[in-house]
């Protein structure tokens, strides 16, 4: 332990054949329809070429044909695991362009739902990461908890996975009466399961041996590749838009930015990226508890909804801290009810581009772990 796991043989001594291997697009560990063209020297990865676009659904073309509220369902389908977080930067941008002040209650509900969805996303990320490593039980436990979170979303918005809930100037519907108790019970449940997951998966010796010192991403490389979210924070970089460029009401809450510090191996390895996700769930729980305490229950969530959404001519780049990192929307408005252009900066798209850099020199089996630790969603990579 402690020393890097990179395999450094004298290549010339071993008479091995270079081999090209095709992983995907139908492969259980590529988290969707990603195709990796891998060049192997024996069992050591020498080159990885990701081929993406197998889920290119023409999001930006659709935006030009839709009115502003009609774009929101398509944004849901970009990063379908955390749809609530996705909608937020978009509606925030249009609210900024139109100069709409959102009511207090709406802001609190938005924060609570965004953090709940962050927990749900990290649960999937850790569950599938465990699945890649061969651990099936954490998958069952984490998905059980996720269903409880989804039931809250369904009670509020009516949708289980894709919500169309954050509307410009407010929300699609009000929350139900027992909202506060429901959320608090979920927070309690999440904390209980987290304790178990730490023992069951994350601090399991076999699991640590598999992920520590694998896929090391130094901080300067992470910045140069534009990584954000847990991938950047795992490299020890305290880069969190909720703290750095506080949007909405995040400056009212007390929470820490979790960074990786090489607990069992080197800073920036697969274990660090995952432990950051794990501890972020606890921070989200803290934010939710504070928000529930401060949130007013009376008031209308739809009073500020504009009848016609027609932002003035202009352009804006809005970003928000998604579970996976910085999600940005570059909205260009031409004064009509349809946007001129919306360019989305997909978080996973940028995070995935670092994969060829960090997977060179490791064993082929480690490549799957590295890919799992980056936590991509192909809907957002291809858009």
């Amino acid at each position, binding site marked *: 332990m402690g020393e890097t796991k990179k395999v450094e043989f004298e290549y010339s001594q071993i008479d091995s054949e270079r081999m090209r291997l095709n992983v995907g697009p139908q492969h259980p560990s590529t988290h969707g329809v990603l195709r990796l063209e891998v060049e192997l020297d024996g069992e050591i990865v020498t080159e990885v070429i990701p081929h993406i676009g197998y889920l290119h*659904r*023409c999001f930006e*073309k659709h935006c030009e044909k839709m009115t502003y509220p009609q774009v929101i369902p398509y944004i849901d*389908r970009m990063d379908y*695991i955390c749809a609530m977080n996705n909608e937020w930067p978009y509606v925030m941008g249009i609210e900024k362009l139109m100069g709409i002040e959102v009511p207090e209650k709406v802001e609190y509900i938005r924060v609570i739902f965004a953090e709940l969805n962050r927990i749900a996303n990290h649960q999937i990320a850790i569950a599938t990461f465990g699945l890649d490593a061969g651990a099936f039980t954490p998958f069952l436990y984490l998905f059980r908890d996720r269903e409880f979170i989804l039931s809250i979303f369904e009670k509020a918005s009516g949708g289980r996975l894709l919500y169309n809930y954050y509307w410009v100037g407010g929300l699609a519907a009000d929350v139900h009466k027992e909202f506060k108790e429901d959320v608090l019970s979920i927070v309690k449940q999440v904390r209980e399961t987290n304790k178990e997951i730490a023992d069951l998966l994350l601090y399991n010796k076999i699991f640590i041996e598999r992920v520590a010192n694998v896929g090391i991403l130094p901080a300067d490389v992470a910045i140069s590749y534009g990584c954000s979210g847990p991938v950047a924070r795992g490299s020890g970089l305290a880069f969190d838009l909720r703290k750095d460029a506080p949007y909405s009401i995040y400056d009212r809450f007390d929470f820490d930015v979790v960074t990786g510090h090489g607990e069992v191996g080197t800073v920036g390895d697969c274990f660090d990226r995952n432990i950051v996700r794990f501890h972020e769930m606890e921070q989200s729980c803290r934010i939710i508890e504070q928000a529930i305490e401060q949130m007013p229950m009376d008031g209308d969530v739809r009073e500020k909804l504009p009848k016609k959404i027609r932002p003035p001519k202009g352009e804006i780049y809005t970003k928000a801290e998604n579970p996976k990192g910085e999600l940005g929307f570059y909205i260009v408005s031409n004064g009509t009810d349809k946007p001129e252009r919306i360019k989305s900066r997909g978080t996973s798209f940028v995070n995935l581009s670092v994969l060829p850099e960090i997977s060179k020199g490791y064993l082929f089996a480690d490549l799957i772990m590295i890919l799992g630790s980056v936590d991509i969603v192909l809907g957002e990579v291809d858009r």
Partner: protein
Amino acid sequence: MGLLNKLDDPYYGGGIILGKVEDILNWGRSKSDWYLQFGLACCAIEFMAVNASHFDFMRFGCIPRTSPRQADFIIISGTVTFKMAERIKVLYEQMAEPKYVISMGSCSNCGGPYWEHGYHVLKGVDRIIPVDVYIPGCPPRPEALEEGMIRLQEKINKQAIFNKRKRLAEEEKQELIIDN
């Protein structure tokens, strides 16, 4: 299902089942369908949820297989793009007969939200492979997928194995009568 019901029937009592060989074969097929583990888009997340503790797809005798050679049916769960369509066709062709297809969600039914302006989206997976059951929803609830599975089992139970032509001709005749 059909056979086991006969056990409760007083006429057939005594633990003896009388039935056609076809029924037994179909019963076996419909109760142990193995599916190809294969996710495309948003629906794949609900598909994962179906496999998890809350819905437990294995109650239906469905076990995930990672190889198309071992799979009985394939669930097209998500948007099929042109880049992916050729691969799906290959996967389908690699599956052993008899094989079935469930189209899950609007996108694979007919392109869904992307049917109008999606220049890179295949408008319905039935343009490349035959589909047995269409499940509407975007994404469908996990229970809706289970309901689709039950519909598929019903379809398999009615399937003709012997005297296919005769059976088909009879069915056509009946349909004609109904139509008229």
